[in-house]
């Protein structure tokens, strides 16, 4: 029966297409940036006479099929670019490529008159925010490191984790529930320096798009959000570049054309970018001095680096090839030497991704992309200790290595089918072979003749096919409906899940739309994270026979109003309800690191340490945004509540997860005082994290049963335990912070330079990083509770990380 329905639908579509071909005509093409020829994503192509339009896809391509007419007016508009209005004869199929001029090169006054935003009320998509890449560079940040993910954290519905962390907590979801894609490749741990900086170098990024709900069917595999980033293709006109020298790192981007034949137009270009920190160099003397104080001859260092590269070739007017890659590593080492003891240890982690994409345009209406993707994430801890026993002329050694890794190979095929002005279809499939090494350890101890290696790997296959239709049935209604089937094969077990998705908008006035959406998502990978202090000790683990995939359902309704289109002011108000099933967490008492005897390590796997439960999150988000003009920025507010319930945690009672946040406010303002000076400021406020802290200590007597009178009273004996008053029942102090930045731009002969001064945490708020209970008389990190001291009390201590931090950087562009 279902088959018949599908056939009938196809027939209708075919007939409709045939009929419309007689009366309709198609215009298609690419939209590029004037000068660099960079393809522009998400440009609004609008037909005012028919109140219809479309956006360019990820590869800058658009196609519109409309009734034949003598002439047609098309409006091309995109944030940060001047609007282009063209009038064309429209009685035959034609290709029309457009170049838009960036505002930056236009005079300020003209810009204000000409600029236009992509009206929010025009699209059926909701819960989606385009992060303006230009604004990212103007927003003040910690130590001047411009950061894409930090800007996303300033959006309503998105919360950050602890101080400095670049993790995203979207609508009650965890940091693993975000699909972070860079040129189609998954990035697993998008952070440097224990989460203080994200791995994405803003200079090389062309577009950033965050989707929090109402997910289109083309996305799958995560519950809470999609952050899709695309790298720039590279300037096709001339060699250009930009870079910066900051307090902790320097960066450089170079891009330019690849001229294969001097007499022909440029068909290829490249972009390369790199960033490296010099924290290791800066901190080395301090660490050395600190160690000297403690009588150790030792040193240590930390640095991270990123490399991005992309090549693109136009094989013909209908084919394009892109090869892009990312490679980043964080490396941390500590060494110490003495006459009797040497030790060396370190942590390193990082991602490597590469993507080969081939765009093929079959005809004016059918556009295809094929991607081959590789992604690799690794996390390693290593430690080596050698002790010399001079008296006995012996040496004992101890070695430990711990690794967690995930490696993916994917194939992705997507078709965009621009049928007519009522229907745009997207059809595609993706399949990923995951190779997991959740935990691998090597332990060698010469003293106990231990030589143990434990490496368990697991191969799984994750696939999805989808069909998505953007349907414009009548003038005021737009619908994006789709269905994704996801399939997962692990350890002989298969999961097959349908995921319906729909979002719709009803435009009840020229500039106001009511939107609603529903999406089901499944997630086959889990992130186990329990330190809460930002160490990258998180393990990526797959769904297995014991651990089924996580699942979520999300409803959202919202209002979008364009208050003043010319000034680019819009307002959105959204409410959402999300429930999550089979989410996982560590069991009480579990630790990622439980290395013991070979037997223990071998048998105590991650699957034994986790437990699954349900979660629920709901909230209201408000966003007032002004994208253009001398003053731009946004104000966001979120009121939300997230609750978890796990049979094995908190005695089965509901509790707030750590990042449940009742109120979250962010204010961002950028003011272009003149062409030479830009002021910017942000203020954030968030309810404190829900934490479990000990509030008292007591003797818990248990009945062990032993008759031994020496240490039990008829079998009963006390253990010292803590009272916590319920899981996560302590609320940390609220987090708030003001940052301020000023930039001085100057056009020099051959380049433009910018001095960037910023102050992080202007009013020196001591925001909590974590809390511990310890003695009031000592600042020892652990212990220090010497109970012989009468005046001693156990008190709760707050560890804050960043006081007021001023910084500056020098940036250039040519």
């Amino acid at each position, binding site marked *: 029966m279902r088959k018949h329905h599908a056939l009938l639908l196809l027939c209708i579509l075919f007939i409709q297409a045939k009929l419309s071909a007689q009366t309709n005509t198609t215009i298609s093409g690419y939209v590029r940036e004037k000068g660099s020829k960079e393809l522009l994503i998400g440009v609004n192509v609008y037909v005012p006479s028919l109140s219809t339009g479309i956006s360019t896809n990820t590869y800058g391509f658009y196609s519109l099929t409309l009734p034949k007419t003598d002439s047609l007016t098309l409006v091309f508009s995109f944030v940060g670019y001047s609007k282009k209005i063209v009038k064309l004869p429209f009685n035959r199929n034609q290709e029309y490529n457009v170049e838009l001029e960036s505002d930056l090169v236009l005079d300020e006054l003209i810009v204000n008159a000409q600029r236009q935003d992509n009206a929010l009320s025009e699209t059926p998509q909701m819960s989606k925010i385009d992060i303006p890449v230009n604004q990212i560079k103007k927003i003040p940040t910690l130590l001047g490191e411009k950061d894409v993910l930090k800007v996303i954290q300033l959006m309503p519905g998105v919360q950050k984790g602890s101080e400095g962390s670049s993790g995203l907590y979207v609508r009650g979801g965890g940091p693993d529930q975000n699909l972070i894609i860079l040129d189609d490749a998954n990035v697993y741990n998008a952070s440097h320096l224990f989460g203080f900086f994200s791995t994405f170098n803003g200079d090389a990024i062309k577009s950033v798009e965050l989707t929090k709900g109402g997910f289109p069917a083309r996305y799958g595999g995560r519950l809470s959000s999609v952050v899709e980033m695309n790298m720039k293709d590279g300037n096709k006109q001339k060699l250009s570049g930009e870079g910066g020298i900051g307090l902790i790192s320097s960066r450089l981007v170079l891009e330019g054309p690849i001229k294969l034949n001097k007499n022909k137009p440029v068909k290829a270009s490249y972009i390369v970018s790199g960033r490296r920190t010099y924290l290791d160099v800066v901190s080395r003397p301090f660490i050395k001095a600190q160690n000297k104080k403690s009588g150790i001859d030792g040193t240590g260092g930390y640095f991270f680096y990123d490399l991005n590269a992309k090549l693109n070739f136009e094989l013909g007017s209908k084919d394009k090839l892109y090869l892009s890659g990312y490679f980043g590593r964080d490396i941390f080492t500590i060494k110490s030497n003495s006459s009797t003891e040497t030790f060396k240890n*370190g942590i390193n982690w990082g991602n490597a991704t590469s993507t080969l994409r081939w765009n093929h345009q079959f005809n004016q209406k059918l556009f295809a992309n094929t991607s081959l993707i590789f992604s690799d994430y690794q996390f390693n801890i290593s430690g080596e200790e050698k002790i010399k026993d001079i008296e006995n002329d012996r040496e004992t050694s*101890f070695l430990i290595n711990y690794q967690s890794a995930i490696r993916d190979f994917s194939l992705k095929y997507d078709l965009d089918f621009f049928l007519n002005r009522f229907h745009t279809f997207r059809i595609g499939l993706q399949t990923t072979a995951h190779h997991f090494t959740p935990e691998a350890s090597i332990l060698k101890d010469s003293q106990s003749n231990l030589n143990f290696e434990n490496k368990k790997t697991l191969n799984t296959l994750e696939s999805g096919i989808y069909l998505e239709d953007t349907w414009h049935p009548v003038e005021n209604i737009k619908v994006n409906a789709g269905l994704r089937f996801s399939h997962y094969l692990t350890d002989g077990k298969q999961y097959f899940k349908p995921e319906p998705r729909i979002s719709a908008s009803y435009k009840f006035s020229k500039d106001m739309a009511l939107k609603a959406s529903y999406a089901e998502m499944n997630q086959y990978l889990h992130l186990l994270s329990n330190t809460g202090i930002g160490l990258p000790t998180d393990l990526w683990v797959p769904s297995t026979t014991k651990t089924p995939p996580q699942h979520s359902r999300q409803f959202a309704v919202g209002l979008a109003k364009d208050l003043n289109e010319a000034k680019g002011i819009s307002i959105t108000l959204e409410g959402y309800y999300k429930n999550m099933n089979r989410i996982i967490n560590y069991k009480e008492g579990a630790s990622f690191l439980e290395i013991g005897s070979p037997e223990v390590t071998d048998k105590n796997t991650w699957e034994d340490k986790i437990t699954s439960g349900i979660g629920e999150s709901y909230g209201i988000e408000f966003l007032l945004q002004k994208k253009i003009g001398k003053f731009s920025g946004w104000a966001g507010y979120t009121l939300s509540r997230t609750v978890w319930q796990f049979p094995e945690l908190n005695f089965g009672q509901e509790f707030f997860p750590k990042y449940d946040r009742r109120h979250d406010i962010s204010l961002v303002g950028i003011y272009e005082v003149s062409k030479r000076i830009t002021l910017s400021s942000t203020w954030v406020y968030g309810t404190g994290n829900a934490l479990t802290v000990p509030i*008292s200590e007591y003797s818990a007597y248990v009945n062990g*049963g032993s008759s031994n009178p020496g240490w039990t009273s008829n079998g009963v004996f006390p253990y010292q335990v*803590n009272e916590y008053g319920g899981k996560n029942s302590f609320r940390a102090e609220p987090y708030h912070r003001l940052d301020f930045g000023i930039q001085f731009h100057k056009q020099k002969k051959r380049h433009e330079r910018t001095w960037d001064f910023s102050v992080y945490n202007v009013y020196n708020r001591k925001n909590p990083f974590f809390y511990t209970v310890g003695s009031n008389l000592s600042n020892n990190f652990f212990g220090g509770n010497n109970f012989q001291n*009468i005046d001693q009390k156990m*008190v709760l201590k707050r560890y804050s990380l960043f006081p007021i931090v001023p910084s500056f950087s020098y940036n250039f562009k040519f």
Partner: protein
Amino acid sequence: MKSKYYSFVNIIKVRFLKLLFPVFLGSMLFSCETIIDEIDPSKFPGLEQKLVMASFICPQDTVLRVFLSKSLPIYSEIPKYEPVKVPNAFGDTNLYYKKVIYVKNALVEISDGVNKGTFTMNPVNFEYELRGYKIVSGKTYTLRASVENFKVEANATVPNEVPEIENLKISRYTNYNQGFNKDTVNGFNLTFDWKDFPNQENYYKVFAEYSNYQKTPKEFSNGINNKKEFKNFSTFFWSNNDLNDNLDLINDNLLDGKTIFSPKGQAHEGKSNYCNNGGCFKTEIIKNMPQLFDIQLWHISKDMYQYMKSVRQSSNISDNPFSEPVPVFTNVKNGLGCFAAYNKRVLVMENKF
């Protein structure tokens, strides 16, 4: 008793942390000078000292015992702990300073709704005792304690019956080159099973102890404290996989009405090493004195299961800063601790192995 790997596991763990912490602390150091502040107690509106009451009753008891103490909230001054006399293996007593804030002169009463009993405090160890009060299977009891401004109470229902211990198997083993002293250790393996009561949630605890009489090694018996004889107790450790967890607490989840097999119980003979300049010498087992196995199956209440499990987990993780915190179960109204009931089956047999 912990598993034979316990000390080994801890040594490895401590070594690992020792290696890791410089790295972690180093990261704090260079990211910025860490700022540490004491939090004002007003952040804890509910911070108060609580009365901690623990009592485990069963129909086989001749004396009921209640353990009363007070919690020590953060921000309160650490008191001077009082010593208690604890008998040692040689028949004497030692003074022990336990970190327990004892509660004296409390009014402690038990009632089944009809019969009431009042406990009296033992002045040696500050435990509250009640003799001659019969605990009956299936009945629900209320335990109340009050002192100063503290008033706590809790209820417990005694499980009706206990399954029979079936298929008991005991065997002897010898492990060579165990531990860091490359010692040879003798011990016993023990398993049994029982039939679960169907259509109800059941919780069990398995227990076994081996006891013998020993004397200090000859090499140590020339001094004044010569030839000390003592009774040794070796409690069985229950484990299926040599993990560092005692699996003596069992529930019938997924096993309702079926045969439940005990985990593998292991206990050493319990010989101690005495070392001097001449080397290390072992205690000797006195052959003509009783060597007994005390094997027990307890049918425990759900409260007792949750409480004992959470206390054990909580204390196991106290030395690992990476572990998730473990809240300890309580069923005591206005206080902490646990009042729970169980019923037990006991088998005592001589060592013929």
